[in-house]
C-alpha cells in the first residue's frame, strides 16, 4: 500500500527513445491504468518500475524509497513488487500451491497462508493441480495470488486480461478489481484496451510520445481530455467548431450547454467542441440537424452511424459526424438505414471545449 512517484524518466533502446521525461504519480491504494497503443512504451515503463530494466535518466520512487535514480538502483527482488506478466507465466514445474508460495520463506510455504490466498482469488482447493490443468482465467488468478503472497508494496499487471476470452475477461477483471479494493492494494496495470482501462481503473494515465499526456479518473479523461488529440485517442470523438457565448456554445447542432470544467478565456471566440458519438440521438421530428447516412454498422447492443450533415441549402455541409445509438433505437428512423437515408440528429450537452488554435 505505497504510492509510486516517477519523475523525468528516460529510456532508450539503442538510438530509439521509448520514454522521454515521463512523470507519473500513483496514489497509495489506487488502481492506475497506463493506456497506450502497442509500441508506446507501456511495458517498458512497467519493466522499469519492476527493476528488470535500468532507467537512462530520471527517478522512480516506491513508497518514498528511491529505487532507481542517479546512484541508486534496487534490484527487483528487493523492491517488493508483485509482478503479473501477460501470459501469467506460472512456473510449469510447480503446483498451484508451489507457485503461490514461491516468494514466501520456506517454512511459510506449507502454512495456511497459501490456501487463504487461493481462497481470495476464488481457487480454494486447487493447490495440488499443475498450471497446465487450469484454464486461462484460473492461471491468471493464480499469478495474481502469487504476486499478492509477498504482500507487495505495489502490484504491476502487464495486459493481464489480453489472453483471456472476451466473456471470461469481464468476470476476471471484476474479480481482480474487487480483490484489490478489499485489500487496498496499490496497482499499476498497462493495457491498450481503452474499455478495460476505463472500466477497471480508478485513474487512467494516457501514454503518448514517451510521456503521460494526462492522468485522471476515467470519467474525467473521457469527457474532459486535455486536448483534442487525446479526445480522439480515447474513444471516438466529433471535434466541431463552435463559438462560446456565456455558458453555452453554438455549434452546427445549435446551442449546447458548456461543461463548467472547460476553461475558456473570455477573449477566445472560436473554440473546438468535443461531442462524443453517444451524445447524439436520432430524433423523429424535424427540429434538429439533418444529415445523410454514409454508412451504418450494427453491433447488437449499439449501432454506429457515419453521417454527413447538410447545410441550409441542402448540400454537403461540414465534416462527417459519428453517432452511436443504443441498439434498436435507430428504428425510430427505419429498421435499416442504408446509405443515403436522411436522419435528424439532436446533440445533448454539456459538452467540453478548448480554445481553437
Amino acid at each position, binding site marked *: 500500500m505505497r504510492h509510486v512517484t516517477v519523475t523525468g524518466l528516460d529510456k532508450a533502446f539503442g538510438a530509439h527513445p521509448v520514454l522521454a521525461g515521463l512523470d507519473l504519480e500513483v496514489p497509495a491504494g489506487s488502481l492506475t491504468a497506463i493506456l497506450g497503443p502497442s509500441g508506446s512504451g507501456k511495458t517498458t515503463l512497467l519493466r522499469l518500475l519492476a527493476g528488470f530494466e*535500468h532507467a537512462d535518466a530520471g527517478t522512480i520512487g516506491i513508497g518514498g524509497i528511491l529505487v532507481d535514480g*542517479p546512484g541508486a538502483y534496487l534490484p*527487483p*527482488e528487493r523492491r517488493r513488487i508483485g*509482478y503479473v506478466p501477460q501470459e501469467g*507465466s506460472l512456473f510449469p514445474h510447480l503446483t498451484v500451491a508451489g507457485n503461490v508460495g514461491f516468494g514466501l520463506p520456506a517454512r511459510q510455504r506449507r502454512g495456511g497462508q497459501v490456501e487463504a490466498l487461493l481462497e481470495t482469488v476464488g481457487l480454494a482447493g486447487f493447490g495440488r493441480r499443475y498450471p497446465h490443468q487450469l484454464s486461462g482465467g484460473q492461471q491468471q488468478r493464480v499469478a495474481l495470488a*502469487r504476486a499478492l*503472497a*509477498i504482500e507487495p508494496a505495489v502490484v504491476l499487471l502487464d495486459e493481464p486480461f489480453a489472453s483471456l476470452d472476451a466473456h471470461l475477461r469481464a468476470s476476471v477483471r471484476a474479480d481482480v478489481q474487487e480483490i484489490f479494493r478489499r485489500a487496498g492494494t496499490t496497482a499499476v496495470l498497462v493495457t491498450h484496451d481503452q474499455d478495460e482501462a476505463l472500466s477497471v481503473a480508478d485513474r487512467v494515465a494516457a501514454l503518448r510520445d514517451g510521456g503521460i499526456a494526462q492522468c485522471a479518473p476515467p470519467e474525467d479523461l473521457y469527457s474532459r481530455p486535455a486536448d483534442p488529440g487525446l479526445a480522439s485517442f480515447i474513444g471516438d470523438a466529433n471535434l466541431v467548431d463552435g463559438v462560446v457565448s456565456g455558458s453555452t456554445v453554438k455549434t452546427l447542432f445549435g446551442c449546447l450547454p458548456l461543461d463548467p470544467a472547460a476553461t475558456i478565456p473570455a477573449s477566445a471566440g472560436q473554440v473546438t467542441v468535443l461531442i462524443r458519438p453517444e451524445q447524439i440521438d436520432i430524433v423523429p421530428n424535424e427540429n434538429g440537424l439533418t444529415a445523410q447516412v454514409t454508412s451504418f454498422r450494427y453491433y447488437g447492443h449499439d449501432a454506429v452511424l457515419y453521417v454527413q450533415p447538410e447545410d441550409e441549402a441542402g448540400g454537403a455541409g461540414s465534416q462527417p459526424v459519428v453517432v452511436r445509438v443504443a441498439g434498436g433505437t435507430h428504428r425510430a428512423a427505419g429498421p435499416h438505414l442504408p446509405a443515403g437515408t436522411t436522419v435528424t440528429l439532436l446533440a445533448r450537452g454539456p459538452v467540453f471545449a478548448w480554445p481553437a488554435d
Partner: protein
Amino acid sequence: MTLLAGTQGASGTRAGRRASRPVALYTAASAVAALMAVPLVFLLIEAAGAGAGELRSLIFRPLTWSLLWNTVRLSAVVTVACAVIGTAAAWCVERTDLPGHRVWAVLVVIPLAIPDFVVSFGWNSLWTWAHGFTGAVIVMTLAVYPLVYLPVAASLRGADPSQEEVARSLGVGRVRTFTRITLGQAKGAIGGGCLLVALVLLAEFGAFEILGYQTFTTEIFTEFHGYSFAASCALSLVLVLLSLLVLAGEATLRGSGRGGRVARTGPMTQRITPPQRLGRLRWPVLALFAALVVLALGIPVASALYWMAAGLPPALSGGANVSLLNAAAHTAGYGGAAGVLATVLAFPVALLAVRQSGRARHFLEGSTYLVLGMPGVVVAFALSYFTERYLAGFGYGTAALLVGCYAIMFFPLALVGVKASLARAPVSLDEVARSLGQRRLAVLFRVTARLAGPGLVAAFCLVFLSVVTELTATLLLIPTGTQTLATQFWSYETNLSYSQAAPFALVMMVVAAVPSYLLGRFFQRPAVTRG
C-alpha cells in the same frame, strides 16, 4: 553486480545507466572458451617448435596430396549420399502416409548408436570386397546418414505446413511445392546435417583402418604411434584447416541463404495436417525403407551375432565375461564422467548464448564452436603433447586426461543440448521469480535449472553416447592396462579374432541404444510447453 551498475550511473556515463552485466556468468563462460582453445593453441605451439622448414617439407610431399584426394573425394560422395538419403527418409516419415511411420522413425535412427568401426567390421568381416573407397562409401553412408535425417525430420516437424498449402493454393504443383517450399524450410537443417557428416568423415579412424582406406586421420594416428610428432603435427594442421574450411563454408551458406523469420500467428498448438499420399509409390518406398534398415542396422547386428555363434564356446568362457563386464564398466564410467563434465562446462556458455546479447556473447559462443573443427585424434594428440612437454609426462595415461579430452571433443554436442533445454526456461519466469524476492542464484536453482532439467539429461546422453562409440582418442589416451568396450573390440579385431570381438560390438550397441532412445524422446517433444 548491482552495486557496480548503480555507481556506473552515478558517474554519469554518456550511455546512462546500463542493465547490470552478470559478471560471474561472463567469467565462467570465458574460462570455458579458453579451455576449448587449448588443443588448437598447443597444436600451433608444437608446429612453431617444429620449425617452418621442416613443416613445409612434411606438408608438401606426395603423401599429403594422396591423403587430401582420398579425404576430399570420400567426404564429398558420402555427404551428398547422406543428404539425399537423410532428407528423403525424413520427408517420407514426417510428411507422407508411409505405413508404420512411427516404427520407421525409430529404426532409421538406431544406426547412429552403432559405432562406425563396428559397421565396417560387419561388412568387411563378411565380404572381402567391402574395402577401399567403395567399402568406405557404403559403410560411412549407412553409418552416418541419421546425422542428416534427425535435424531434417525435426525441422519438417516444426515447420509450418500451411506454407505448403498456400503454395498449392497459388497454383504450384506437388513437386515444385516440395522443391520450392519444403526443401526451403529444411535447407538449414540439411546444411547442418551435412556439416556434421563431413566433420565425422574428416575425424573417422577405426572404420577406415578396417577398410584399408588411408585418410589424414589414419595417417596422423600411424605417425603418432611411430613417435614422429613433427609429421603428425604437420598433417594435423592440414586436417584442422580442412575442418575449419568445412565449418566456414557451412556458415557462409547459412548466412547468405537465411530467409527472414516470419512470426507465426495463431495458436501455438500444431495443427494436424493430412499427410501426403504416396499412392502407387507406397510399396516401392516401403521396400526402400526395408532395404535401408537391413543394410544399416541388420548387417552389423547380424554379423556380430554370426561371429559370436561361430566361436560360441570360447567367446562365452568365464574370462571373457569378466573382461566384457570390466570393459563395459570402464566405458560407462568414462562416458558418465565426460557427460557430466561437458554438460557443466556447457551451462554458462549456453546461458550466455540464450539470455545475453552483444559482441562479447557472440565471440565467446562462437569461439567454443572451433572445437568442432578439431578431430578427436588432434585433440588427443595436442593434450598428450602438452603433458609430455610441459608436465613432464604428469597426467599422461590418466583417466582424468581422457575424460577431459572427451569433454572438449564433445563440448559442442553438450552445448546444443543445454541451449535447447534453456529455451524451455523463458526469461520471463526468471523475472517473475526475482520480483517475488528471489536472488539471482536462487532463481537459477529453483527455476532455470529445474525447467532445463530434461534437456540437461539430453546433453549428458549425447556426450555419453559419443564416448561409448569413440575409438581414436581412446586408443591414444587410455590409461595403461585399462580397456573399454571400444579398445577391447579393437584389439581383438586387429588380431582377426572376430568371434571374440563380436560380443563387445553387441554390448556397445546395447549401451549406446539407451541414451539414443532417451534423446529421440527428448527432441521429439515440442520446445515450449505452455504453462
